[in-house]
């Protein structure tokens, strides 16, 4: 380890010597100030006026969403605003990096990125994969180790169990049963520990060309898969031959089944590497022959023909410090996540004809990340400490700058489906009510809601969204859907009920609503406006509840209709999971003032200020 630090100091010293050629050299031990300095130089060169710094409340909300994937609770907002210590922003980042929700948020991020939304077949246990991811983020596994372990993963996929479990639902009772059945079925007493990472490999079982394309794209930012069908045309860099050779690195990997014969639910398999090609089933074997016939060669020509385990050799090559793509790809991805646009636009498309902006800064960040021991939290700390991350989303002057390619103001980012759902549940404080209604089926309810949201709100995060891209069904759900509309009613225990019950006048209640939703205090003008709004109402709006059959149906009934098992894969299908909670009877008698409060709450949740990270 020590030699590395010596190297770092030597490089830093060289860097100081070469200061006049400001961006020319690599500079490990990068400081936030140095990053800002480089970016400011670039702004200066291009005559760009940056936005002013962001205020504390908006910074807090931004950091919460980017690091934990939800908005801060109101008491955290007030405490942060009251905190007078000069380094409170840095302290906040440290606190967030230690929060258990950190692992959940990044599990969501990587689960979406790697698994996508489609999962089928009997081999992939998504719960086990998610759990593996979560452990990596809990332990802050160095990125090189993370990627090495993922790409070379071997071992058992699952303890068995039902599809529902494998689709992301943890149901201990069923899991146990499934595992027991699976064992009874095979008569084995195999108790090898599960390696959840293999489920990603299994997603591509029999399709090595898709696996290799994804590996190259996500972890190296190289779109080698373009050469699958023809020599790549843009830069003429990759030939079909290159793609076949790269794919050959994965051809010796195969699932070996543990459960034989008919299995209901997940089939337990062992992912192993053998000394000859595995061609998959009859349908794909002919196609896979071309990869079997190619030598396993990395993108820079390194040949793994003599390696006993091609995937391990490839993973070692990929994650080696000399690999020019590896650190840059993840730095670019993380920068994109936090600042809304990477150095390379379309984060996984590095090529000569798509050059990065500020290539030297990208390289410096990548070198620093490498020198840090591939520490993701170090990288996040560094990015979040920069002034460029802490700029306002409001532009500096009237000149529109639609490009904003140098991050001179913070980019609006639409919340991801998971972020939006979690933020809505947190803002309305619906969780306790969900628990009360769903009881032991809470996880299932949440899963159904999540399915609905990811189906409706999925957008491609891999390249910058220049314009808002939304759909009518998304908007209808926020306007008229149950989550928002039940959430804004004063069901006992939820946000509005507590706010209205608290002592104090309208100004205090309006402030409380702002803190819960927009995570900031309202301005005096806003308070003035909304005090008039909540007191200006004279009539109560009442509609006949268009009652779906049997509004008094026992709770069990409605929850029994939640998606189960294989059907859980069907998004947006069947009844709305929230269809009937908060039925009349649990609500106080509506008054004009009460309805005006609900309407203000509704407007806040529908607002752009709520649904964007800004």
């Amino acid at each position, binding site marked *: 380890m020590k030699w590395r630090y010596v190297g770092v100091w030597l490089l830093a010293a060289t860097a100081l010597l070469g200061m006049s050629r400001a961006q020319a050299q690599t500079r490990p031990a990068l400081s936030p100030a140095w990053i800002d300095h480089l970016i400011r130089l670039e702004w200066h060169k291009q005559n760009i006026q940056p936005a002013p710094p962001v205020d504390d409340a908006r910074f807090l909300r931004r950091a919460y969403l980017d690091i934990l994937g939800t908005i801060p609770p109101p008491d955290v907002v007030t405490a942060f605003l009251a905190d007078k210590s000069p380094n409170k922003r840095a302290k906040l980042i440290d606190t967030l990096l230690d929060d258990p929700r950190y692992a959940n948020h990044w599990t969501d991020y990587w689960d979406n990125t790697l698994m996508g939304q489609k999962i089928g077949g009997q081999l992939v246990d998504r719960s086990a994969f998610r759990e593996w991811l979560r452990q990596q983020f809990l332990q802050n596994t160095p990125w090189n180790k993370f990627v090495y372990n993922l790409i070379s993963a071997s071992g*058992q996929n699952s303890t068995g169990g039902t599809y529902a479990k494998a689709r992301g639902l943890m149901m201990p009772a069923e899991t146990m049963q499934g595992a027991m059945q699976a064992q009874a079925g095979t008569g084995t007493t195999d108790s090898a520990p599960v390696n959840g990472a293999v489920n990603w490999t299994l997603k591509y079982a029999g399709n090595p060309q898709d696996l290799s394309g994804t590996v190259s794209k996500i972890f190296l930012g190289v779109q080698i898969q373009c050469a699958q069908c023809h020599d790549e045309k843009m830069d003429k860099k990759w030939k079909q031959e290159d793609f076949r050779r790269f794919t050959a690195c994965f051809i010796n990997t195969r699932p070996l*089944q543990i459960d034989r014969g008919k299995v209901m639910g997940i089939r337990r398999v062992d992912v192993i590497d053998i000394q000859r090609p595995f061609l998959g089933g009859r349908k794909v074997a002919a196609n896979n022959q071309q990869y079997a016939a190619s030598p396993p060669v990395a993108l820079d020509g390194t040949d793994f023909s003599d390696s006993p385990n091609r995937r391990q050799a490839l993973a070692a090559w990929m994650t080696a410090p000399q690999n020019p793509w590896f650190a840059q790809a993840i730095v670019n991805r993380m920068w994109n996540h936090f600042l809304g646009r990477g150095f390379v636009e379309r984060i996984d498309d590095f090529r000569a004809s798509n050059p990065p902006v500020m290539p030297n800064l990208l390289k410096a960040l990548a070198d620093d990340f490498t020198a840090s021991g591939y520490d993701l939290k170090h990288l996040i700390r560094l990015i979040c400490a920069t002034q460029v991350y802490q700029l306002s989303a409001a532009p500096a002057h009237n000149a529109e700058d639609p490009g904003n390619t140098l991050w001179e103001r913070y980019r609006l980012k639409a919340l991801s489906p998971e972020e939006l759902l979690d933020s809505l549940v947190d803002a309305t404080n619906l969780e306790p009510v969900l628990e009360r209604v769903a009881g032991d089926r809470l996880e299932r309810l949440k899963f159904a809601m999540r399915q609905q949201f990811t189906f409706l709100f999925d957008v491609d995060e891999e390249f910058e969204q220049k314009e808002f891209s939304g759909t009518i069904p998304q908007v209808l759900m926020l306007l008229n*859907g149950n989550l928002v509309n039940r959430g804004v009613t004063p069901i006992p225990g939820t946000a509005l009920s507590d706010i209205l019950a608290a002592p104090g006048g309208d100004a205090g209640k309006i402030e409380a609503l702002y803190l819960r939703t927009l995570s900031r205090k309202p301005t005096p003008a806003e308070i003035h406006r909304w005090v008039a709004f909540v007191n200006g109402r004279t009539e109560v*709006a009442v509609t006949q509840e268009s009652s779906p059959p049997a509004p008094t149906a026992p709770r069990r009934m409605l929850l029994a209709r939640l998606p189960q098992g294989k059907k859980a894969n069907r998004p947006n299908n069947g009844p*709305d999971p929230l269809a009937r909670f908060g039925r009349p009877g649990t609500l106080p008698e509506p008054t004009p003032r009460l309805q005006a409060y609900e309407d203000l709450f*509704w*407007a806040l949740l529908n*607002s*752009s200020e709520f649904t964007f990270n800004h």
Partner: protein
Amino acid sequence: MTPYDPQSKELKELEEMEEQQIEQELGRCPGPVDLWSSAIDRRGLFKVGMGGLLSLLLAQWLDPRMAYAQGPAPKAKACILLWMNGGPSQLDTWDPKPGTDTGGSFKAIPTRVKEVSICEHLPMLADQADHLAIIRSMTSREGNHQRAQYLMHTGYAPNPTVTHPSLGAWVSEELGSPQAELPDFVSISGPSFGAGFLGVQYGPLVVQNPNQLPQNVAFAPNVTPGRFEMRRSALDMLESDFAAQTRDNKVKGREAVYGRAIRMMRSPKLKAFDISEEPDAVKAAYGDSNFGRGCLMARRLVEAGVKFVEVVLDGWDTHQDNFNRTTKLMGALDPAMSTLIKELADRHLLDSTLILWMGEFGRTPKINPNEGRDHYPQAWSAALAGGGVRGGQAYGQTDAEGMKVVDKPVVVPDLFATIATLLGLDPSKSFMTPVGRPIAITEKGKPIRELIG
């Protein structure tokens, strides 16, 4: 973990078994087809840039396909896709082979068109055959549900670098209008496929159940139109503050989508989704099935200006008990599709409405031991009607047992080029994808002139 011994006999057996298993995993058909599972991929956006435009223009001048584009002026202004999910059996519908080993037990009946006979369980469609162009020579290569569904919705086989827009999204982008009160693309009883790189705004509005309005179009409980206005005025205040602060296009873009959603909620045309308004006799004519009600809704939606409607009839994956199951399916199909054609004709809308009937592939002529038929992309059928189609014909031919196409094979790009031409879309018009490659509605497809009237 089992130590690996390549010589072990046990392992050899295991591998054989396993390869079959994995083949199943690879999508052969692990169980009932999950209609919704492929729905969720709606990624990407990006439109053509100026650089792309020039090359596209050039490409068009040099493109031999342009020669085919000369023909009668397109009549179709809207399209209804009747999607037979699971892969319908051609021999038991449009391409009967009675009296052969593969023909099964169904008889063939004559239709209004001489020389064209179809399955005995489609008598009402037989009576509308003068409107139908039956293609008996479809041939493709995808025998896996998901891949083939993607192919038959987008015109392309799945490709790791790009998500292609579905036909509905192309139509929505090309023929739709951002000012329309209803969405341009509606999918009934199934999720259809999204807009891929064209952008989510061109994707379908999904109606899960033809007996109900689309989700969330109705006001929430205790929200009256008046109260909704008050909510909206509060929201407008928040939005204009935030837009003024950030001066960001995304806020304006969001406002536009809100505007469109609210316009739809308020539109009198929303009633097009409500089939309960129809006379009982009309409802009865479409048949007592969700597919029938979906077809009726499709007719109402097209009348209200919707450009593309997909209606799904699920259940064609008849690996077992093919004949009883297809009889039942045709019991839903026959009245629904024939009444749809008839009603559109009566209302003078058939000429301007293209009706497509297809699934992801056909089924094996050989009947398996479970009285079922398996997946068969080599030779299968599709049907077109209305919208400028030259009706009253069966195009192409399979051999006596339906094993292969022997005359006028139709590949998927040609079918898509034909559909595009009927709809007045240029099959070769391309859009720039996020990976910087222009992509057109069809790749090298040629419109089939004999199908265009």
